[in-house]
């Protein structure tokens, strides 16, 4: 077109970013890559092609890792770990800082390579992905610097296996590697097979930074390589970002292995627009919510909920905005929507939309390139909660929508999902915004904004969006553990035979469900004997139906989470007071059951523990993160929900209270399974609860064999977390069965805990009893 013609048409023209440097780097590497193990690139082996999804051209040949490669990488990481940890936080900080500087110095090379490999617009890789990557390393250089002084009781986990997805290849690498190495771990990372190139460039950068060999190892390949890492027995931790289906497989695969696990999985995040919102800004926000990175974003605002009165005009404005999107060559600096990562993903998206017959589908009128993996931005309105597209993650540029009438209906619809990653709320009413944020089941809430990220604010979800946080102080918990030493725990088994009858008047122990004593559904009881074989009582044998009833009662007691922390503290004090009044009786019971003389000591410790968590109830504060916006990111500690706990056998009363008290102090409801060999302290204890103003359903107590109850508890989909301190060997089954709804787990892996000492209480329990929700509130008038 001539200048004169353009002067009339006022079209946008091509504005391509130059890719010469990126291609030159690929050529320098021979267009073929091996793995990065022990500070060196291995020779390229059999593998697969990495292609540019926008053009189909081959970028490089990559190597499929073998079991030997993974072994070599893990060995290198293992060998390097001790020295890396011993270097100290301040020593490690210098390397993280050097990496951050090098990332900055090679920013454009990383951006262009990312766009070539992934298909995302250069604007995004240049202005979002790569700056966030740098920010992550700078931020965690600081965390390494502060670790020794601020986290004196923390130590690294060891070797971390990390598996990252293709949607933000370098950014997810940064989110995984930066906190891991800052805390003194070493890493074996596998990038996604579609998008490995920036990880390999990053390896090159690590060499330039002089990072000690073996601290970071990168192996390439498909899911089979990921599986080898997950199942490798010399890996201490697995961190995975990807689909919920694969996350579930990894949860089962690592069950009982003692590996730490964090999962950042899928989402179907609600984007809620109230009628008093700045409508134009809310429409524009959707461009960044669902058309950012072609919608291939786990936290994409993919489920639009619009207040009914404004829906038609909102949709009209949205459709007009969609027509203005520019789709095309991702290297073009004037493009909004680039290429879908791969033909397989394009087919998945196309099939899902084609398979939908509900509602009304609108696609942008903007032109799509004739070649390459492109999909038009799409809006489907008029869906219902029953429509599959309203529930299933599409992972493409497809927005689905329905309307709501009231704030409470918006909350109900928003939470009507298996996922819980992020949520967006648009309203100019601060009362409404701040009321909505805690009610939305999500790890991140954005008020009048969307897809804001920063290293200082934790990112991660609840429900089937996974567990663990990446970023902020809360993200460090995923990469370190308490230094406290533990011993192996031998099983306590009930004494099953002895001589009767019960001395004195028969007292019937029952289950405690919904504030009432309940007989077991099974109709069976078991005799409890002393060590010497004296029959002291019968206790109910709870079954799966009793768990069901207890969970229903706990779920029904949700208002406990909304009571004030002051009130929860008062009730915990009151429980302590009432236990104190019956201290002698409880001490005697412990001595009788266990045959020792330490009953008084345990009762005293239990009373103190109640007082400790009464003290904590209104003091486990959240934080305001220093994120780079004019606004605040509020990190709120929210109760997990309903927690099932298999209680300790070593300290039947103290262990029970050590699980119960932090949980209810933080607003959770609990289903406690009493020590099976020594159940009577728990069944005595419900009488204390009855007299202490504990609302019905907040604490539920079951008795029975842990091995029988653990699978039902762990697989129950309305339980949000399961803890096991049992001396029965149930850690594996708990972790395995928790995959049903990907609930959080905390198991002892047959290690003991010093219930009377520091390890028996404190922040570790409070952190397990809460999840951090980051609420981003930009402000300004």
């Amino acid at each position, binding site marked *: 077109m001539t200048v004169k013609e*353009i002067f009339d*048409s006022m079209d*946008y023209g091509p504005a391509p970013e130059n890719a010469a440097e990126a291609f030159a780097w690929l050529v320098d590497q021979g267009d073929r890559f091996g793995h990065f193990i022990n500070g060196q690139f291995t020779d390229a082996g059999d593998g697969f092609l990495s292609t540019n999804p926008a053009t189909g051209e081959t970028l490089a040949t990559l190597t499929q890792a073998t079991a030997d490669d993974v072994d070599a990488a893990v060995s290198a990481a293992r060998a390097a770990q001790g020295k890396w940890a011993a270097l100290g936080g301040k020593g490690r900080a210098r390397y993280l800082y050097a990496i951050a500087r090098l990332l900055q110095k090679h920013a454009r090379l990383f951006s262009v390579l990312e766009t070539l490999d992934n298909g995302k617009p250069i604007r995004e890789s240049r202005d979002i992905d790569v700056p966030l990557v740098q920010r992550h390393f700078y931020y965690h250089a600081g965390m390494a610097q502060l670790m020794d002084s601020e986290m004196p009781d923390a130590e690294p986990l060891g070797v971390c296996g990390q598996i990252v997805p293709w949607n933000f290849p370098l950014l997810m690498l940064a989110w995984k590697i930066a906190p891991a190495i800052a805390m003194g771990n070493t890493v074996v990372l596998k990038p996604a097979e579609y998008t490995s190139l920036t990880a390999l460039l990053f390896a090159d950068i690590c060499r330039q930074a002089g990072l000690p060999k073996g601290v970071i190892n990168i192996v390439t390949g498909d899911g089979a390589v990921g599986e080898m890492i997950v199942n490798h027995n010399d890996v201490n931790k697995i961190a995975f970002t990807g689909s919920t289906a694969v996350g579930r497989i990894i949860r089962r695969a690592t069950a009982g292995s003692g590996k730490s696990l964090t999962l950042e999985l899928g989402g179907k995040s609600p984007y809620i627009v109230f009628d008093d919102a700045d409508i*134009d*800004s809310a429409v524009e926000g959707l461009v960044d919510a669902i058309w950012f990175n072609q919608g291939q974003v786990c936290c994409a605002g993919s489920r639009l909920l619009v207040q009914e009165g404004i829906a038609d005009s909102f949709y009209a404005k949205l459709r007009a905005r969609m027509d203005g999107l520019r789709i095309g060559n991702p290297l073009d600096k004037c493009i909004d929507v680039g290429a879908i990562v791969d033909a397989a993903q394009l087919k998945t998206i196309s099939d899902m939309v084609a398979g939908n017959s509900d509602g009304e589908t609108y696609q942008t009128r903007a032109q799509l390139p004739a070649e390459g993996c492109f999909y038009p931005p799409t809006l489907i309105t008029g869906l219902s909660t029953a429509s599959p597209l309203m529930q299933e993650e599409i992972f493409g540029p497809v927005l689905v929508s329905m309307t709501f009438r009231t704030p409470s209906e918006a909350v109900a619809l928003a939470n009507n999902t298996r996922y819980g990653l992020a949520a967006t709320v648009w309203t100019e009413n601060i009362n409404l915004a701040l009321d909505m944020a805690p009610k939305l089941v999500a790890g991140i809430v954005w008020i*009048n904004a969307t897809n804001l990220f920063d290293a200082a604010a934790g990112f991660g979800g609840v429900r089937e969006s996974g567990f663990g946080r990446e970023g902020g102080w809360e993200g460090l918990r995923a990469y370190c553990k308490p230094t406290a030493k533990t011993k192996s725990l031998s099983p306590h088994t009930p004494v099953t035979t002895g001589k009767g009858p019960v001395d004195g008047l028969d007292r019937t122990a029952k289950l405690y469900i919904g504030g009432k004593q309940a007989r077991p559904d099974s109709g069976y009881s078991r005799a409890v004997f002393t060590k010497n074989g004296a029959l002291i009582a019968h206790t109910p044998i709870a079954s799966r139906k009793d768990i069901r009833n207890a969970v229903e009662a706990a779920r029904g007691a949700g208002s406990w989470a909304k009571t004030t922390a002051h009130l929860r503290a008062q009730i915990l004090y009151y429980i302590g007071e009432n236990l104190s009044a019956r201290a002698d009786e409880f001490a005697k019971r412990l001595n009788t059951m266990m045959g020792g003389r330490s009953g008084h000591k345990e009762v005293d410790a239990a009373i103190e523990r109640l007082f400790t968590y009464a003290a904590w109830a209104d003091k486990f504060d959240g934080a305001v993160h220093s994120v780079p916006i004019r606004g605040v990111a509020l990190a709120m500690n929210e109760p997990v929900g309903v927690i099932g706990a298999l209680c300790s056998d070593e300290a039947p009363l103290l262990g029970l209270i050590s699980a119960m008290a932090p949980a209810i102090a933080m607003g959770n409801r609990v289903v406690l399974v009493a020590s099976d060999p020594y159940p009577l302290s728990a069944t005595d204890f419900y009488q204390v609860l009855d007299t202490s103003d504990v609302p019905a359903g907040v604490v539920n107590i079951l008795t029975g064999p842990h091995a029988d109850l653990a699978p039902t508890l762990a697989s129950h989909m309305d339980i949000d977390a399961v803890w096991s301190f049992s001396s029965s060997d149930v850690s594996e089954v708990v972790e395995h069965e928790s995959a049903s709804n990907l609930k959080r787990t905390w198991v002892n892996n047959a290690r003991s805990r010093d219930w009377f000492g520091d390890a028996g209480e404190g922040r570790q329990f409070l952190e397990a009893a809460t999840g951090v929700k980051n609420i981003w509130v930009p402000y300004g008038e």
Partner: protein
Amino acid sequence: MQTDTQNTALKSAAQLPQALAQEPRNPGMPLDLDWVRRMQANTSAIERRAKTLPGRRSVKKEYQAAWLLRAITCIDLTTLAGDDTDARVQRLAAKARQPVRPEILAALGVDSITTGALCVYHDMIPPAVAALQGSGIPVAAVSTGFPAGLSPYHLRIAEIGESVAAGAKEIDIVISRRHVLTGNWQALYDEMAEMRAACGDAHVKAILATGELGSLRNVARASVVCMMAGADFIKTSTGKESVNATLPVSLVMIRAIRDYYERTGFRVGYKPAGGISKAKDALTYLALIKDELGNRWLRPDLFRFGASSLLGDIERQLEHYVTGNYSASYRHPMG
């Protein structure tokens, strides 16, 4: 929003704004307070959009040259200084007639272009009109006690009439900021409506002085009230406030224009003024208008830059495009 018929008509009308008779003037409408009060503007979200816009849109090479020429045709070449004289205005008028050196235009393959208008104080209207005789370039006059708008009301209205009588085809009025700051929308509406009436056939641009309105929400509300009262253009600033045209303010005002068009079918023009001095800024503004309002607004009858030094930077960029060498300001005739 743009039809082919309009396109053809616009091409033939080229750069002469007043020749675009086919665009009906905004007749205004009764004050709709519900609409005014529903207007929201979330500052943080608007700032984010404004901040990322330059990174989202890029115009290069021949496209950039063409866009910059378009920008020139949308400039209200302005002198609003206490020391303005006839000769000063004549020099600026000559620049308005021939804003770019002919050999540069020839190299670009474009016929002569002019700026959108020449903008002066009332007393400078006669020399401006005389100097622009036969060019088709309208003279715009700032009015109504510009810039503060606090002279006696009847004199402000009378000033409009005097300026129209002196030959101004466009009148840039200033609104009473206090009506916005006190939420007296009726008073703002009445004032604007009377000023519009006083303009007669001359087009009226309502200067909101956005830097003095306190919030973007107020900017949005003042924008719709002025359009309801019959403004042909809404304009950001006098150029005399400490904060003048910004991208966030522009976003709010053009979204209000879009709202008004969607509801009434009438297109109101937009004029950012003050603080736009770089060619790159001009491209960003044009992209903002194109994306938010559509191509129809990229014409001088619906879009103007109120600027004095912008032209010089554009001339240098155009010479760079033509020669491949970075240019110098002394190579271009000063305005």
